[in-house]
């Protein structure tokens, strides 16, 4: 039951900056995902919250109390490791009781709490089994239960699904989300998989190269990425980004995409309109917004067709231009070598500055 505040948090390893200027407040009971590619600083952030790594700058506060001086064994942080770090030389019961024993809880109280936790997580039938050789979903439950039984202020989860078979991941995701609801605990989750973040988190913090790029609900981040990296990283596949030049027409400003064609006239927000547009822009649109349209103003050759169950991903482009389109299987599908003519709803277009990568005018 704790609010976590990271202010100006930074970490340098020698001359390498792993994290810089991280500001993030995680609300009580909130599920926040730290999302980014490997080396983006997400694990460093988590390890600093847990106390395994000391920051070189900034502060970490739990409910307005700085915890930098609190040793890691007293921070009251429940940590679930990537491989769960289950004590395999002990029984399931001894694993669950470990934290209570370490904190000197009396035997009767310990038994009561271990049994209650085992009931909650459906671990009761295997309490006296050795923890070695249990299946991965049971290990996940045990790892969470082992932390939860000491009633930690917050939970930190470090890519707990990355060693799990693809086929099993969706089961584990929903189980994890259900567990978080049960405990209604503040939870920070580190992952490189945008799908995990999108499906589980209340808010997502997207990071790259030691910088926090955007924080928001999954839909905010999906709909209005503030940065071209975020735009590309979120979504499956990510947002298409094409280089373009602003041009004028009778109906207003549009983007000239050279060989790809021209966009429809832009639906500019007041802010973008008043800000003015740079000459060169990055033209962004989601693959699922590609609208096959014989009268469309844009066209790209199809160079690969990937049909996956209900949807088909068309890989478009050539000559350094790359874009994807996600289509429903119901429509007549073009084949490799065809030219796909398409349009994009102007409301769904996102523009970015080609130099800074920052979204132009916020919501268009």
């Amino acid at each position, binding site marked *: 039951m704790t609010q976590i505040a990271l202010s100006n948090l930074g970490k340098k390893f020698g001359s390498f900056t792993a994290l810089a200027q991280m500001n993030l407040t995680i609300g009580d009971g909130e599920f926040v995902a730290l999302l980014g590619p490997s080396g983006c600083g997400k694990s460093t952030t988590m390890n600093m919250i847990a106390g395994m790594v000391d920051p070189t700058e900034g502060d970490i506060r739990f409910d307005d109390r700085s915890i930098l001086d609190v040793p890691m*064994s007293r921070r009251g942080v429940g940590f679930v490791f990537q491989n769960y*770090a289950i*004590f395999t030389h002990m029984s399931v019961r001894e694993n669950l009781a470990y934290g209570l024993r370490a904190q000197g809880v009396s035997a009767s109280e310990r038994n009561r709490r271990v049994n209650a936790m085992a009931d909650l997580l459906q671990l009761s039938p295997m309490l006296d089994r050795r923890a070695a050789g249990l299946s991965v979903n049971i290990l996940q439950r045990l790892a969470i239960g*082992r932390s939860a039984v*000491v009633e930690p202020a917050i939970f930190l989860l470090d890519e707990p699904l990355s060693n799990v078979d693809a086929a099993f991941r969706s089961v584990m995701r929903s189980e994890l989300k259900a567990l978080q609801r049960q405990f209604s605990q503040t939870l920070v989750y580190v992952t490189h998989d945008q799908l995990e973040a999108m499906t589980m988190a209340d808010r997502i913090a997207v990071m790259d190269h030691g910088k926090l790029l955007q924080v928001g609900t999954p839909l905010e981040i999906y709909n209005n990425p503030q940065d071209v990296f975020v735009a590309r990283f979120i979504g499956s596949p990510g947002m298409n980004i094409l280089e373009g030049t602003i041009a004028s027409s009778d109906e207003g400003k549009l983007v000239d995409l050279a060989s790809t064609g021209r966009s429809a006239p832009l639906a500019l927000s007041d802010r973008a309109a008043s800000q003015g547009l740079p000459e060169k822009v990055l033209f962004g649109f989601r693959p699922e917004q590609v609208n096959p349209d014989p009268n469309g103003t844009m066209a790209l050759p199809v160079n690969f067709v990937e049909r996956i169950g209900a949807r088909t991903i068309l890989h478009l482009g050539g000559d350094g231009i790359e874009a994807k389109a996600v289509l429903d299987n119901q429509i007549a599908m073009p084949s490799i070598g065809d030219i796909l003519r398409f349009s994009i709803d102007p409301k769904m277009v996102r523009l970015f500055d080609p130099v800074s990568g920052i979204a132009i005018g916020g919501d268009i």
Partner: protein
Amino acid sequence: MNGVSVKKADIAVLPQDNAGSEEKRLGFWLTLPAQCLVLFIAVFPILMQLYISMTDWSPLDGIPWYRAYELWIGFINYTDLASDSRFWAAMWRTFLVMIVCVPIQFLLGLGLAVLFVDEFPGKRWFYSTLLIPMMVVPAVAGYMFFLLFQSGGPVNDLLSLFSASPVKIAWLSDPSLALVAVMAADIWQWTPLMFLILLAGMISVPQDQQMAAVLLGASWGRRFFTIVLPRMKTIIIIALAIRTIEIFKIFDTLYIMTGGGPGVATETISVYIYKVTQQDLIWGYVAAIALAILIVLSVISAIAISKMSKGANAR
């Protein structure tokens, strides 16, 4: 991380013990000659010992060893051994060295391993220095300790510094102290090996499990005794078994320091066997002693192996 470690996926592709039963049988016949040879090489010296131990043969008798049956005496050597007080005294001394040296080496080694598992300035230098005793040739170590424990040697000089009057202890010629000097040499020389094995074991205890324990609120001691030590069980058994067995082999250091003396005060089992072989030349009897020790050591190894396989199952 860089994809070079061998994973199960690799190994699984190689044809292993799960080959068809037909192939297994063929494999057995093809390797049979080689297996016989290996078995012969391993077992022959032991069988020969067993054979000689049933005789009164000595190289001076003028008959080759394979005709030793002409001097067949059955189990006489063994019954003699049972009542040989010098043998039992040597066994007892060996045992004494074992129960003193092995625990001390273990505790010192474990303590050093705890220090060296974390980083500290100058670690590499200390590390190399600590391993030097292990690399000294035992005979040279024996000579070094022979000099150290002279009555006018550095050990007494050092002790004199801490006491009012000059210390003149006759370490190597006092029957009750000679064994202490011998034990000191063994501890000096073999603690590094114990340290090295235990350090390797300690490093291999998964870091995230230790972290998990700390994050659950475990103190240093709790983490050490509930996570680190139990996970080192197998390696601890290996280390203890190696040193226990090696104690039976103490010879060169000791022989140079005391020659087994004064009298028989430091005569351990290896020294006793050497004396019986080289001085008394009763080889049938020696063979009986050797077999008796082999049985003792086999029992120790068997216990260690069974404990180890239990430890391995727990993983």
